[in-house]
């Protein structure tokens, strides 16, 4: 079965006066129907630009310069990159919806909540005017807004942040899209509200079968709802695999460092929290070779010269690291890897992790 969304070698570059910023540089991934995929990375890793590229909402002077974004579960998949203005308009909010980081500023302050939800439906022909009108209150109820019927006439400033994010979700789901992109939906919210929103997303995913791409830097959020994780660094995918595998057995040094820099309740007392030294690279002048090598404590000479391809480091787990490559199952040249990235079969259970490998050390690939 063809995936719902297939992104192939996507490159989104920003042409500035003093050079090109390759915000997203050749990423390939897919999302299946009803699946929840997390994209993780630091600020500036290109995760938001990836999601905006799927919506064709990349801000100026950014441009999708290469690649395909194939969307469509049934019948012919369409390439989002090649859609006409009218096609992309009808695609946004109807086939794929997006909710954003800051609910405080994402709703129009001068329009009523109910109107903003209804408007999302009237922009597309899935529902008649009558239906759109009558769907507003049930939608607000679905995202658990208390007293939904009385609150359609309210303005955004009369809502709290969590409530506004619920309105955004209701708006996003109003046309029953098959994919919802949530770009850091909980970052601006406090922890209890975060948990509620994540729970809501998970329930909606189960009830409505809406696939979700969850973009976040919060690994706990990923662990709680995503089936698969994509780790991005400097515009590239550095590791990809099932959540369970990645959390148990991170392969790429970056993923490993990310997981180690997360406070854990089960950690040994007084153990030091790891910080990743250095800063993410300046994307207008990225380092040669592996983009992570300046911050990597496991680097070898080859890392400084040549960029590693994304290689299979375990069953359905892929990472971009030379240190792993020595043991890795494939070491294809970059281009071949991009052209035919193996799509992990959905049904396959993540294989048994080799117990001898120490889960905390990268490069601990099964023998």
């Amino acid at each position, binding site marked *: 079965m063809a995936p719902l969304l297939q992104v192939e070698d996507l490159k989104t570059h920003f042409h500035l006066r003093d050079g090109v910023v390759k915000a997203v540089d050749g990423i390939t991934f897919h999302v299946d129907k009803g699946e929840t995929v997390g994209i993780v990375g630091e600020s500036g890793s290109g995760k938001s630009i990836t999601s905006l590229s799927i919506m064709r909402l990349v801000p100026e002077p950014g441009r999708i310069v290469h690649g395909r974004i194939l969307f469509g579960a049934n019948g012919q998949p369409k390439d989002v990159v090649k859609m006409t203005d009218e096609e992309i308009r009808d695609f946004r909010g109807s086939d794929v919806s997006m909710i954003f980081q800051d609910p405080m500023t994402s709703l129009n302050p001068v329009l009523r909540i109910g109107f903003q939800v209804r408007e999302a439906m009237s922009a597309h022909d899935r529902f008649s005017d009558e239906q759109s009108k009558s769907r507003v209150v049930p939608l607000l109820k679905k995202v658990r807004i208390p007293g939904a019927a009385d609150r359609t006439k309210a303005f955004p*400033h009369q809502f709290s942040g969590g409530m506004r994010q619920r309105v955004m979700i209701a708006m996003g789901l109003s046309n029953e899209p098959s994919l919802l992109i949530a770009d850091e939906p909980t970052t601006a919210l406090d922890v209890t509200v975060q948990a509620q929103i994540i729970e809501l997303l998970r329930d909606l995913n189960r009830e409505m079968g809406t696939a979700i791409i969850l973009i976040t830097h919060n690994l706990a959020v990923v662990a709680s709802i995503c089936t698969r994780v994509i780790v991005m660094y400097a515009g590239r995918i550095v590791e990809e695999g099932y959540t369970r595998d990645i959390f148990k057995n991170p392969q790429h040094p970056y993923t490993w460092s990310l997981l180690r820099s997360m406070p854990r309740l089960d950690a040994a007392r007084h153990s030091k929290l790891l910080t990743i030294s250095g800063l993410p690279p300046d994307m207008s002048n990225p380092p040669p070779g592996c983009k992570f090598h300046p911050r990597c404590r496991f680097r070898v000479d080859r890392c400084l010269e040549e960029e590693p391809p994304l290689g299979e480091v375990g069953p359905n787990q892929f990472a971009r690291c030379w240190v792993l490559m020595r043991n890795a199952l494939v070491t294809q040249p970059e281009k071949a890897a991009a052209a035919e990235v193996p799509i992990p079969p959905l049904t396959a259970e993540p294989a048994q992790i080799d117990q001898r490998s120490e889960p905390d050390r990268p490069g601990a690939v099964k023998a």
Partner: protein
Amino acid sequence: MTRGTLLYIGQRTLLIVLTAFIVSSIVFIGVHQLPGNAFVGERRTSAASQQALLQHYGLDKPWPQQYGTWVTGVLTRGDLGESLKQRGQKITPLLLREARVSVSLGLFAMAFCIIFGMGLGILAAVKQNTWIDYVASFLATVGYSMPNFVTAFLLILLTVTGFYAWSGGNFYEDIGWGKLEQIPVPAIALGLLPMTLITRLTRASMLEVIRQDYVRTAWAKGLRSRVVIVRHALRNALIPVITVLGPITTGVITGSVVIEYLFGIPGLGKEFVSSIFQRDYNVVIAVFTFYAVLVGLANLAVDLVYPILDPRIRY
């Protein structure tokens, strides 16, 4: 309209009355400090007849007393007094007649500067960094740097060859004022400067709003571009533009003083200038106070438009 709004209007109206009182007092004091009086230099008059005139109009009395008489007249009879120059001419009907001329000119100028200013500003913002934007911004900068009397002369020069002939030369006082086709040219001369101000402001405000998250949300919903621009961006972008409409009204009023003089339009502005030169005290005070009330009302109108545009504002 809520009770709060009515209360607010009441308060503001009281403030306007108070302002009018203060303005008229200051002008009353100021105008009497000017050297000479209304009867100096009018043909050759004997000292005795001068004295008789001053006595007739009560100008020989101490000015607090004069002011008292004037205020009583205004408050009890709505009588602004009598012109000292145009003998026997009551100021109230004079003011109303001339105000009609000025207000029609002013409204035309306001409509011109709002419609074209906003239109050009929106166009420049939506087409940012294209030739449309550059042309609009260039025009706005040129227009903004040009005093209205220069604009007026250029327009006269321009229209004398074309529009003048078309309108049958109906531009000038001696032919009379009151035909509709006479209004546009002076109105443009009057409205060009505020128009460029609105253009620049609308452009800047639109550019800021277009980058807002909620406009991105609107695009992400799949709304048509016209809906995004007008309903989501423009409505928010207008709030700061509305703010300057108050000061712009003031600008149009003061601008009309020059424009009416240059075009020979028998309005309040022209009356204002000549009354000062002629020391026609009562007319000066009346026109000045009228302007003060007009500015107050314009600002009140602007403040009443706010809550319609922005639901976060309530009175």
